């Protein structure tokens, strides 16, 4: 059915649906657009005409210049990349191994172990902070990337294992048995199954990355030093120091947002489908 053949009532209904959706989309995007737009303007234009996009007269990069001089944003970026990508890789590798074992083999305690590993989906890792900090102090890992990576890996594993094992159960048994008859080892069978659940792996990767990239709690507690600060912590500290420098504040917010948004719009299809798929399982 296309728009042309719609009855008047249906047409009106569609107009209402689009109007509501456009309305909410504006609500969702307006604050973001406002900040990005004003980060490119001179100070007086930010205040005198905040909702007007920058033009030849008002355009200015002064905020970004302050950032370049006063804060180590490339460093924060590097830290966030190291921590996020390492945690993601670990979650994917050891998570898929565990998920494979849970979905593939019948052994005593399988269900109990699955339940044990799934507990962490609901119980926030934050509640163990007091003891974790003591452990990392004892290990001498405070203010290192390793501390963050270990915590984030532990945090990401439960959901990854839960979803991946659901997907791996759907891989047909004949495929695996054929490989075994050909003499493949169990490790090889695992290596064969992983590419078959690629969509699930992509989804896990995206929703492992986002909370880690955005997290403030663990960087404040485990790695607050300048050398290890992530982009979220770095931005938070910078915002605190430069509250009154609106150009710098808007520029730092933009710098922290735009890469994530670009990545998101590139991957949004997989991400949303991943959540949809994960929820359906």
């Amino acid at each position: 059915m296309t728009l042309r053949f719609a009855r008047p009532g249906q047409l009106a209904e569609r107009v209402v649906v689009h109007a509501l959706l456009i309305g909410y989309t504006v609500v969702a995007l307006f604050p973001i657009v406002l900040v990005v737009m004003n980060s490119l303007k001179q100070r007086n234009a930010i205040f005198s005409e905040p909702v007007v996009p920058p033009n030849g007269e008002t355009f200015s990069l002064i905020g970004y210049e302050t950032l370049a001089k006063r804060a180590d944003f490339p460093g924060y970026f590097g830290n966030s990349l190291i921590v996020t990508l390492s945690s993601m890789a670990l979650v994917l590798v050891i998570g898929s191994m565990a998920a494979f074992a849970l979905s593939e083999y019948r052994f005593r305690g399988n269900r109990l172990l699955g339940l044990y590993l799934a507990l962490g989906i609901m119980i926030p890792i934050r509640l163990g902070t007091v003891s974790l900090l003591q452990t990392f102090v004892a290990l001498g890992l405070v203010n290192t990337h390793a501390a963050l990576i270990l915590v984030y890996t532990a945090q990401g594993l439960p959901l990854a294992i839960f979803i991946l094992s659901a997907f791996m159960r759907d891989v047909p048994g004949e495929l695996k048995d054929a490989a075994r008859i050909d003499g493949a080892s169990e490790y090889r069978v695992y290596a064969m199954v992983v590419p078959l659940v690629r969509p699930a792996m992509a989804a896990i990767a995206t929703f492992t990355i986002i909370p880690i990239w955005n997290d403030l709690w663990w960087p404040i507690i485990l790695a607050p030093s300048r050398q290890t600060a992530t982009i979220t912590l770095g931005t938070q500290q910078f915002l605190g120091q430069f509250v009154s420098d609106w150009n710098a504040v808007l520029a730092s917010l933009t710098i922290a947002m735009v890469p994530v948004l670009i990545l998101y719009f590139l991957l949004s299809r997989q991400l949303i489908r991943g959540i949809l798929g994960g929820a359906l399982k």
Partner: protein
Amino acid sequence: MAAPSAVAPGRRPRRFPWHIVVFLAPAVAVYTAFMVWPLIDTLRLSLFRLDEVGQTVFGGIDNYVRLLTDDRWSPRFWNAFQNNVVFFAIHMLVQNPIGLGLALLLTQRVLRGRAVYRALIFAPTVLSVVIIGFIWKLILSPLWGIARDGLQAVGLEDLFGPWLGVPDTALITVSLISVWQWVGIPMILFSTALLSISDEILEAARVDGAGKWHTFWSIQLPLILPTVGIVAVLTFVGNFNAFDLIYSVQGALAGPAFSTDILGTFFYRTFFGFQLQLGNPIMGATVAGMMFLIILFGVCLYLFGVQRRLVRYEA
């Protein structure tokens, strides 16, 4: 379902299946060492106290009793708990209904630009809470005046106030900022649930002359009740564990006058200290223990109360 084990009975003598251990060991080790053990150890710590010479001695539930009744701790704790309940209630009453409404709009049978709307509306959800908090702080700031000008444009400028700076409105404002950010999650979960309702049921209702409103109340809503339960429990766990937004918008003191203090910020201050008060790991562990009990209560209520009763409805 599960494929035959690598060790087929009868063909070969049973060997110990080392490969299973190799597959499971890294995940179980990291998860146990950095998630389960710290939680158990924190709970254990909350049962101890420091004696006069600074030794830890077992104190049973003394710390919990102190947290709930002692004048030095209980007013702050109950204040944070109450605020947290309000924070959760606002999410349930505003975020989840809006999420459901958007999901209903997005799952219309004929809708151009569905994926675009969904991606755009979900965008704030992928951003850091710190960024979102600060953006809203700027927008609501009387200094910039965006919110004031906006209200002025529709003739409501009398409504404007320094919402984040006044105890009466700060908590509601912060909650609504959080709602704005997270509405994408219930939207996606409800969309999934609505899409899984078979077209035949909806078609039958339409043929019977049921309107959209009627169809929603008597067919769609009952069928998505399991998702309503999941969304509620996810909201509960997320809200009773929240911290970042309050910390970045209102600071560790969760001002003004502790009006936005929730359990997460109370936990942070108790553990690390603030201003003149020293950090206290043992009471910090106790607050974490209370948060654990609250979250556990919510999850159990869902698992044993809500979910059991809902299974019947599943089509």
